């Protein structure tokens, strides 16, 4: 065949060819905006591998994000994507899921977006037990605005708005989500990517509100002010701090100080999922109208 020519058969991708996560990416928009060594890409990739495992369809999946570094992920994802407003991703997602229960709805948010400005929406989304999977990228800071303190900066942490050390305690976001009524709660790190992928996959298949906290590193803004410095050192730090739920069970609070408890932390399938119970209510009304 002469140069420049190609047959139709050649243009069509082979069915047998295994898909990579590029299938779900707008690769033409690369390189992405995240800094070198930032863990947000790692967590996004873990989500996309979970999506591949489940074979999520692009036109039946809606990914909603708020504002911030983590929320910029949706700009690269080839699903129906909504880059909404700061803190409100879950409110947008609630409207989308209630209007179209058949969609798989994923929310990508950060610790500032999800736990500070969006904290109210987070607890109410947990309470409603709507079938939405929320992945909260926790990098302990506001990266996009330049390293200000977030609710997850932690006591003694440094930030541009905590130049003498932050003196407020953090949330335990997973315990918050569980107490608020989330029926699937898990935590992973950007070091334990295989575990994170599995947790996200199971969260998506769980019929109810799933909350997955992904602890990750921000070497540029958080790492610059808080030891250890550098992406590699921060990642190794995550590795050292992470401890499985099983191992943590026998440990005292003192021993668990500063550790990141990972794994599936809570799962309850006895609570009715909201779109399902709403559909049952509509059915009840229809029947009473017919009578």
């Amino acid at each position, binding site marked *: 065949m002469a140069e420049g020519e190609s047959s139709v058969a050649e243009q069509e991708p082979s069915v047998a060819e295994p898909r990579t996560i590029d299938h779900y990416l*707008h690769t033409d*928009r690369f390189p992405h905006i995240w800094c070198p060594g930032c863990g947000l890409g790692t967590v996004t990739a873990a989500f996309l591998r979970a999506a591949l495992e489940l074979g999520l369809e*692009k*036109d*039946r*999946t*809606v990914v*909603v994000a708020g504002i911030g570094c983590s929320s910029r992920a*949706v*700009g690269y994802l*080839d*699903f*129906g*994507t*909504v*880059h*909404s*407003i700061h803190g*409100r991703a879950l*409110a*947008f*997602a*609630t*409207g*989308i899921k*209630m*209007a*179209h229960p058949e*969609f798989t709805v994923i929310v990508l948010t950060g610790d500032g977006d999800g736990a500070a400005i969006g904290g*109210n*929406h987070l607890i*109410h989304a947990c309470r409603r037990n709507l079938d939405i999977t929320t992945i909260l990228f926790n990098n302990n800071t506001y990266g996009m605005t330049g390293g200000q303190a977030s609710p997850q900066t932690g006591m003694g942490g440094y930030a541009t708005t905590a130049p003498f050390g932050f003196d407020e305690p953090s949330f335990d976001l997973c315990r918050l989500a569980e107490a608020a009524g989330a029926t699937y709660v898990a935590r992973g790190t950007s070091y334990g990517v295989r575990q994170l992928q599995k947790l996200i996959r199971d969260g998506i298949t769980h019929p109810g509100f799933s909350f997955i906290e992904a602890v990750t590193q921000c070497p540029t803004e958080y790492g610059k002010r808080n030891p250890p410095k550098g992406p590699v050192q921060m990642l190794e730090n995550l590795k050292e701090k992470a401890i499985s739920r099983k191992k943590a069970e026998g440990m005292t609070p003192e021993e668990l100080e500063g550790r990141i408890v990972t794994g599936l932390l809570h799962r309850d399938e006895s609570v009715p999922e909201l779109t399902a119970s*709403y559909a049952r*209510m*509509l059915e009840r*009304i229809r029947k009473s*109208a017919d009578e």
Partner: protein
Amino acid sequence: MELWYTHLMRETIDQDSLLVQGNRACALGALDAGVRFFAGYPITPSSEIMEVMARELPAVGGVFMQMEDEIASICACIGASLTGEISMTATSGPGFSLMQEAIGYAIMAEAPTVIVNVMRMGPSTGRPTTPSQGDVMQARWGTHGDHPAIVLAASNVADMYRLTIAAVRFAQRFRMPVIVLADEIVGHMRESFSPEIAGRYRLTSGDFDFTETYIHPEMVREVHPPHELGTLIHPHVTGLIHDETGFPTNDPKKSEQFLRELHDKVVHHRGELCLYDVKNVGKGRVAVVAYGSCARSARAALKLAEQEGIPVEVLHLYTLFPLPVEIIQELARRVEFILIPELNLGQYAREVRRLAENWTTVVSMGRIDGNLITPRDIVDRLAELVGKYESA
């Protein structure tokens, strides 16, 4: 006309008297216009709208959500709208303030939705069960950035019904949020009402048939390709300045073009959007421009003033924004002065003044004690002004 309303609806309307509250008429209009998603948060004096929706939407297979606050309410409405649902929310001043950021998002993302603001006296908690028109400028300029706005104002119960239908139609056709303003008195008063009664009104601005339901009307050409989630194009929707692909751009030329197009779609169709009614055209030496409850008083004042020898023209505006520029300027050319009664300190009078001051004098008549402006008040003020101008 056979009402399709469900068995539940009959309980909402007192069948014997057909006395319907303004807020309920608004909800009926929304249902007739095809609204099938409502998210709201309780607030006086608008709560009855969401109460009717809570009862009626499930009966027609729609979704009703009581959200955790007004921010969540409008965001849920925008979310539903992005999937193609016709959505609406209702609130009052304080809640309307909370919604402002998301209204800007809906403008930027071209997501149609309707926001009904039943206005109370403000600022802050103010007097929640007292009529006011204090949110006119908030409706126009509440969200940040340069943006277009479509704002309608209801003056009676029938208006609550038909302007809600018009708002849904405009929202769909222009793919942007549309705001319906009602004074507390308009939301809470009860009047003889049925959709047929509402259909009998005819406006000077055109034969807009409010009895027809307008589900998914044709979009104006300036709208960018709609971004409906759950379709084969699986689009990206963002509040960032974006280009025709839907993805963000920092290109100065494209940014300006995009923002201008958002404005153009409203400006180019001002004739369609500006709903108004003129009484006594060309017969008055003076004119009253009014909207909401004050327009009712103005219409009543017309007869009273004639009896007292003051020929007056009344321009009743149903659309506050986009500004009916040509209508106001034509009026300004024919009259000696324009009086604008409002339940605020002259928010709309300022708009009319800048349009009309080359040709006539614009006098603001504001009232902020929580009482209505009566027809007598208007006539007395007109007589005073006529005397002043004659002696001058």
